[in-house]
Structure formats: C-alpha cells, structure tokens
C-alpha cells in the first residue's frame, strides 16, 4: 500500500517547490501526530506511526498555502497491541473499509504573532466535518519552522467507538489531537 511507505517528499512536490519557490515537505522524523483521551478518568496517549503530509505554507501568500494530511489509521500506536487491534475493528476506525483519515485545509487565517487558524475538513470513517486547527509557528536554531497546534475531535461525531463503546463515561468523547510539524526552510 502506497500509504504504508514512509514519507519521502515526492518528485511532484519537489517540482512544485521549484516552481513556486515556497513549497515544503515536512520533516517526518521530527514531526508527530499524537492524541490524548480519557478512559475511566485516566489520560491515555497514542500516536499515528504512518502518515504523509503535503504542506505548502507561505505566510505571505496564505490563499496559495495548503495543508493536507493522509493518516494511515491502522498504524495507530496505543499502550497495548490488544487495544491497537481493537480500535482497528469495525466499531472503531474500521480500517479495513476506511484505511485513511484525511485532513484538507480550506482556508488559513493569520491571527498575528505567528499564530494561524487552519480551517479544513477532517474525514474519518466516511464522515467529513469542518474543523479548525489553531497553530503557533516558530523558527528553531537550524532554520526549520516548528508548527504546533492541538484541537479537539469528538469521536462519536465520526462514529468511532460505537455500540458498547459509545458510553462516554468509560471512554471520553473528546480526543485532543496534538500536531507537531517541522517544516524545512522555504527555498
């Protein structure tokens, strides 16, 4: 499966970079998509091991900027293999039928002070909803940009954890998604 390949900036994106002088890949090894939820009042963390991103972030030309993520949902990393298997199942992500979670930005708003709101659509399990991801941008010593932000997803909006698992006293409805992206300098 193409998605299972670890991310390498594709030739297309490199061409795009050359053409627009501003396209970026994401330094995937330094970036992460984590999430946090509560089970019986206990914080439970996880992350996705495999995903790819197409990020063109032009602070001076936001309309031409674009943020896209494809997340391999079966690559979920949880505390135990049992839980990982469980959440791939039909009542959770149903990764057999819906292997990919996708975020596509629709507009990016500059809030000033290196803060941005990325509005977009998040698709999981065949359901698409509007979300806004607030991010803060900063430069690190090596000239890379670090974009960090988190937003809350209500799992039941996407029918994730149906049936017995729909009980939010056991597993909370709110899932905080934490995104940390390291972007190479604009060339």
């Amino acid at each position, binding site marked *: 499966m193409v998605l299972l390949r670890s991310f390498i900036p594709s030739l297309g994106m490199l061409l795009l970079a050359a053409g627009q002088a501003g396209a970026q890949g994401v330094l995937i090894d330094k970036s992460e998509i984590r999430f946090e939820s509560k*089970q*019986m*009042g*206990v*914080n*439970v963390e996880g992350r996705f091991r495999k995903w790819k991103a197409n990020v063109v972030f032009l602070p001076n030309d936001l309309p031409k900027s674009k943020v896209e993520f494809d997340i391999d949902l079966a690559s979920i990393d949880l*505390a*135990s293999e*049992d*839980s990982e298997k*469980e959440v791939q199942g039909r009542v959770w992500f149903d990764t057999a039928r819906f292997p990919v979670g996708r975020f596509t930005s629709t507009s990016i708003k500059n809030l000033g002070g290196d803060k941005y709101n990325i509005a977009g659509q998040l698709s999981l399990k065949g359901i698409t909803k509007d979300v806004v991801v607030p991010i803060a941008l900063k430069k690190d010593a090596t000239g890379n940009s670090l974009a960090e932000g988190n937003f809350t997803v209500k799992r039941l909006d996407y029918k994730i954890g149906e049936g*017995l*698992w729909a*009980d939010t006293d*056991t*597993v909370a409805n709110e899932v905080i998604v934490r995104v940390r992206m390291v972007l190479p300098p604009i060339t």
Partner: protein
Amino acid sequence: MRQPTVGEERERYDGIAIALHWLIAAIVVAGFTLGVSMVDLPLSPRKLQWYAWHKWIGITVFLLSCARLVWRWQRPAPPPAAMPEWQRRAARVTHLLLYTLLIVIPLSGWLYSSATGVQVVYLGLIPLPDAVPKDKALATVLRMVHVTLNFTLLALVCVHAAAALKHHFVDRDNVLVRMLPKGFPKPKGSTG
C-alpha cells in the same frame, strides 16, 4: 484517649477496629475477585471499568489499612487468649504478614500499572504520580510479584479464618467474638 473501664471491654477490640477489620476484609474479597475475573475479559468497556474499580479498591485497602495500623498503635489489641506458645507465635507472624501484604499489595499494583504505562487515577479524580516509567520487562516482573503476593494473601486469609473458626468452635474461647460486633454470643461452655 478513652480507656476501657469495664473488664469485658479490655478483652474485645473496639468498635473502630472491628469496623475497619470487616470493611477491609469485604473490599479485599471484592478486589481479589475482580482481579482474577478482569484479566480474562475480552477488551470491552466492562474490562476498563473493572480494572479501574480494582485499582480504586486497592488504594482504598491501602488507606484503610494505614488507618487500621495507626488505630491499633493508638489502642493496642486486647491481650491474646490462652493458647500454646507456638500458636501465639503463629498468630503474631500471620497478623504481621497480613498487615504487610495489605500495605505492599496495593503498592505493587500501583508499580505494575505505572510500568505498563497506565497512570492510576483514584476514583477517576485524583491522579497518582507514576511510580516508575513505562517498562515492558519490569511490568512482566511486577505482574508476577503482584499476583504471587495476592495468592500468598489468599493462603494467609484462609489460615487466619480457619484459626478463628477453630478458636470459636473447638477451643470455645472469645478470639472470634471479640472481633465481632457486641451482642454476638460467646461459644457455649466458654470460660473467657
């Protein structure tokens, strides 16, 4: 500190000690039963609940046992009934081990949970710090320790209960009755 005034009182445990003894006994049984039942459940909301309840029970046992020890230190147990020296010594050792396990088993559970990377949050409200960082190998060892200590406790509780019943029905002394609420009749033909 109130001292018992009547001779009868000095032979008995006081009300708080009796209440703590039976409360701890009841929730230890509940916690143990949950513990052995929950591990084989398929992953389900019930399993998550039972694990959480098991841990909450463990912390409660720890807290109540600390209270029990403090209380016992404040109001020493009534003097032992008449019995052979070896039995008195055996009872002493058993009680010492029971108290130790009631304190150590919850701690081992907390360590084990921490090692598996699952924080313990008492009653879903009060988060405990992680006792150790997540460590799979350590978790395997701690699980074994936790289980072994629990079955040791089970064996000791059986010995403890059997001894109490033997005192009541065979020796016909007041050893069991003094740990029961007032009003329970002493064994027939007892002298104590």
